């Protein structure tokens, strides 16, 4: 048993999750593969979206995977960083917009 929660090598073992529930894993990977194919959005565009989302959900495996994938697909460093800023802006904005709820509550109880 590892004494830390994340191990870079575990990303390569992702496929093994089917060991405990094959049917659902097979469906997940089939769907996942379908999602990232060229379609209305190109695989290249999807890779940059995935990179941004990986940061928003703060998944180190996904960040590793989609930093490589997006760079391989030709996105530049500055484009990738802008995508991370978009994710961060949405996350920051999502926190900040709750300030309205705070204001509503304060206004409802204040004299």
């Amino acid at each position: 048993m590892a004494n830390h929660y994340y191990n870079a090598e575990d990303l390569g073992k992702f496929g093994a999750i089917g060991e405990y529930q094959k049917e659902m894993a097979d469906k997940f990977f089939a769907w996942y593969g379908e999602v990232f194919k060229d379609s209305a959005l190109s695989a290249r565009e999807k890779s940059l979206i995935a990179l941004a989302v990986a940061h928003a959900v703060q998944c180190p495996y996904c960040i590793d995977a989609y930093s490589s994938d997006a760079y391989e697909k030709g996105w530049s460093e500055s484009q990738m960083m802008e995508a991370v800023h978009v994710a961060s802006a949405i996350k920051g904005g999502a926190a900040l917009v709750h300030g309205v709820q705070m204001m509503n509550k304060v206004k409802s109880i204040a004299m």
Partner: protein
Amino acid sequence: MKSLKALQHALADAGHQIDILEHEKDLPLFTDKMKQAGLLPLHPTQPEIFQVNVGKMCNQVCKHCHVDAGPDRKEIMTKETMMLCLDVLANNPSFKTIDLTGGAPEMNPDFRWFVSEIKKLNRHIIVRCNLTIILANKKYHDLPEFFKQHAIEVVSSLPFYTQDRTDRQRGNGVFEDSIKALQMLNTVGYGMEGTGLLLNLVYNPAGAFLPPSQLALEKEYKDALLERYNIQFNQLYVITNMPISRYLDYLLVSGNYSSYMDKLIQAFNPVAAANVMCRNTISVGWDGYLYDCDFNQMLDLKVGCSGSDHLSNYSSSAISEREIILNQHCYGCTAGSGSSCGGAVA
């Protein structure tokens, strides 16, 4: 920047490279993978491409170069060896395409003579032109016109359609000169619809990763080069970097060797393996020795037919019946959609 050879670097020795590929990391043997795919021993199909490395001299010193080429490399094919090439070609009409590579092949003083003599044998010629050679010296400025006169197919490396990635791999200023050279080639008709003058570009990754889809990247290249520089070309060949020579040095120094080899192995594709270029190609070294491919040439792995491993003792039957020499670097040609001098193979 100097070549590994000029630096007296350990990796300038082909034997040392093979030792690293075989022992640095415990990897599944490429020959076992081929056996599982029903491709061992690997035999040639019909010989079609006669690839000649006319010398290791080059005006560039690219970080990924598998030839370890550069201005300090003096190995150059002589006219006598070129004449041996012509003899073999005259006697072996199945070689329809002659692929001239280097170094910068145009720097060989007998390059133009060699091209004219090959044309007399009525063969198709490919020149692997690094583009910047056209601008390197006044005596090379007329190369686009020379290529056109001899109906040569031009295949040129442009690692990316942006300056940043290209210069990082090939040196400062290379992108700007490459763009100017491509515009000169377009001006004489190369890459332009209806001219029949073929201009194909080569992408290879500027780092420790595998290439993306050839078709998708070709569209991006075409759109970007046309929009930004008014440049047109025919096809994009996507090539995987081979873990040998300077690229092997880069992988080891950057700590990427292990993960890169894992990527190549995980991406092993039996369909690509069945279509590897060594099956229809013979590679000729600057000194006339024969190899299964340019990569084997740089690792000094000569063709496996004793008594017929040089132009001077060329035997078409021995070449046709030989077993192709395989080693761990061959994973570079079988990953994903495969990789060859003509791009993806699967």
